[in-house]
């Protein structure tokens, strides 16, 4: 999955360092909690494992007010358009951590109902495996995201976000053209993507 290419030797300036420091230490999560991983998330936010020491205590359940979406739990095919819409409505800069195996790859659910990994429909930055991952693992995932943010640059283009919005426009067009529901449109787009060998619909 092509995302920002760290290997392209992005030169970060002092300004980038300051901006990234601010961004990584104030990641406000949007907990997209659907299943058991959300319980572990609650545990992580509580005092024993304490995410607030990372600046991430202010969880906001609105995409307008958060910058890090944590997909916590199984995403069904019926929920897929909702995840896409909510990701679309987040303001940049935005990152996604897919927590748990269900969000990363479908987990133990290889069925008609489960989306086999949320990275088929939205771009994901960090995957945290586990069923459910321990709170320490989730914190490690956030720390990895912080490392990733450190390496960003203001002049860097985020292709994956641009492609995501293009795919959303294609989804709307396809849905209007064929009169399908959002879910069936996404399934059609997935099958099209499979035919041309891509791993995602964006």
């Amino acid at each position, binding site marked *: 999955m092509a995302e920002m290419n760290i290997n392209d030797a992005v030169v970060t300036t002092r*300004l980038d360092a300051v*901006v990234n420091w601010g961004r990584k230490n104030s990641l406000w999560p949007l907990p997209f909690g659907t299943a058991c991983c959300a319980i572990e998330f609650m545990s992580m936010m509580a005092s024993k494992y304490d995410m607030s020491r990372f600046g991430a205590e202010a969880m906001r359940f609105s995409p307008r007010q958060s910058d890090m979406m944590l997909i916590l739990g199984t995403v069904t095919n019926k929920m897929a358009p909702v995840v896409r*819409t909510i990701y*679309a*409505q987040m303001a940049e*800069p935005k990152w996604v951590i897919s927590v748990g195996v269900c969000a990363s790859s479908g987990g133990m659910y290889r069925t008609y109902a489960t989306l086999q990994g949320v990275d088929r429909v939205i771009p994901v930055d960090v995957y945290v495996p586990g069923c459910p991952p321990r709170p320490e693992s989730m914190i490690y995932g956030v720390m990895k995201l912080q490392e990733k943010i450190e390496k960003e640059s203001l002049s860097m283009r985020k292709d994956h976000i641009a492609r995501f*919005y293009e795919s959303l426009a294609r989804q709307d067009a396809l849905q209007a053209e064929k009169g399908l529901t959002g879910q069936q449109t996404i399934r059609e787009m997935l099958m099209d993507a499979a035919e041309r060998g891509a791993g995602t619909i964006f």
Partner: protein
Amino acid sequence: MAHPASPFLPVLILLLVAAVTAIAILVLSGKVLPLLKPNNPQVAKLRPYECGVPPLQEGARHKYSVKFYLTAMLFILFDVEAAFLLPWAVNFKHALWTFGAMLSFMATLLVGFIYAWGKGAFEWER
């Protein structure tokens, strides 16, 4: 040798600081911030947020109950009355006729209060 306007020096300093702050905020957010922040306006991003599902009805802004306006208006009137009450209470303690004057002022407003009460302006559920 003190300048005659010297008690007002703090005011001048405050004025300058406020002006500098205001201009700094305007310049930073107008010129500097657009260089730092990502700018990616997208149609899908600007749609109204309805928990990710397509909006159930177009525009939820039409029917606006008048009781909000009524409550605000009544609040203003009686709040101004209370504001008049305060300096009177602090200042006019030396004579008794001032008490009567204030009573007649409040009686005028009391008439309005009883009228609003009778008309049901205080009933929220209607």
